[in-house]
């Protein structure tokens, strides 16, 4: 199983990767900005994508649009964001995100949501 985690916060990526690997979710690959995320998405097939909204070059919402409309993939996507505004959440779901988690979040909760989306 392959999971892509996109966030410009290295500390957060490190924590999420550690948590997901401890839960035996398989290989966790990181992208520190939107451009790297897009490149990795074009070169690989992922089983799940976890992405922050605010990232350099391309936002998390642009990543969702890219996956759904350009790559035409149905890969489950979880959006992580410090911004819990109703319109942002609605917009994320509207363009095809499968889940939305507001920062700060509990790593345990993230693991449960990942498990649910991966049908494990």
């Amino acid at each position, binding site marked *: 199983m392959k999971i892509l985690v996109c966030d410009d916060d290295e500390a957060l990526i490190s*924590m999420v990767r550690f948590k997901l690997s401890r839960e035996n979710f398989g290989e966790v690959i990181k992208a520190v900005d939107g451009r790297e995320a897009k490149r990795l998405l074009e070169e690989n097939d992922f089983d799940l994508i976890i992405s922050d909204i605010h990232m350099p070059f391309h936002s998390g919402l642009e990543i969702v649009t890219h996956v759904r409309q350009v790559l035409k993939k149905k890969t489950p996507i979880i959006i992580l964001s410090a911004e819990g505004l109703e319109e942002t959440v609605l917009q994320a779901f509207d363009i095809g995100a499968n889940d939305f988690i507001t920062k700060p979040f*509990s790593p345990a909760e993230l693991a449960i949501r990942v498990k649910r989306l991966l049908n494990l």
Partner: protein
Amino acid sequence: MNEQSSFTAIHATSEVRIFIILALIFFTAAILFVGFILVSRFTKNKRQEKEAILRNYFQRTLNAMIIMETTSSVPASSHVFKLDTLRTMTGKSSLARQVMVNQLVSVKKSISGSSSKILERLYIELDLHTYSLGKLKRDSWQKKAQGIRELAELNYQPAVETIRTYIVSDNRTLREESLLALVRLDNEGPLSFLDQYSGTISPWMRINIHYHLSKSDARKLPQFSRWFSSSNLDVVLFALSMARQFRQSSAIPFLTALLSHTDTRVAGLALETISALEAHELADGITQRVEAFWTSEKLSSRMVRCLGRIGYTSEHKYTILRYLDHPEYTVRFNAVQALYKMDDEARQLLLDFNTKMNGILSGAIEHVSEPLLQ
């Protein structure tokens, strides 16, 4: 002739000597300057490398401590070992202490729940709170502000009283940092400092305070109306703005009095708050201020918008109708908009008035009736 040439030669020699000495001084200074730049760049690079190594190590240890502790039963010896290692490392240098604090703050911003509590506990167990408190004794205000922010981010509540002393600081940044820290740390009364506060509240502070309050338990929010009678105008404006943001209907009975406030900003914000809280019961009280507000474009506009939202159509449409004749276009436009949205009868009143006045409001009516602009 010979004497003159030897004099010129001696003179020339001394000039050359001075030139050579100056050149040497300049050359040495240039070498020292370049050397200084190279050494400082080398030191900076070394420091950054060291920082990256420490950050990486601390992050891995933190991951292990947080994730393992919250998911499985880890032997106490493992925790003690990790803690001892971290303690030894952070005890060695201030760079290591600062990197560790930065990591704790950075991770804490993204995680919540029991994991977040582990970070707060580590901050104390590694004695890093003493390090942050030590910064408050430094002369530099930047260090003091950094210390205050670290204590607040890592929720070190015993520092409340120490931080409180900075709310009267002459330095604006220190004052603002300490106020924000108190909002986060003082669980008993996060805004109790407002009782005696005589300084200003900048928009930046207002946004930050609102952000932190919105993350706390709504039931623990103070009654903002208690500061409506403050002698500090900034405090009154802040309290009004928070009452509106948090939709505190308990503030409604105190709002009418603020319409008579000597400062027009307070009266204007009170009108907006009444409107946002949909305090229909205050509509009659508002109409009593029509004459007083008439000459102010801003207040009249707000009055009309407010009445349009909370007024009873049968009674207050006639008050709004008066504003169709207001000297200011903005006010007339707001009145057109309010009447147009009220009900069919109010709309008819508007159209009749327009006909009577030879269509002077036709442009505004066309604008408000355009569906794309609704």
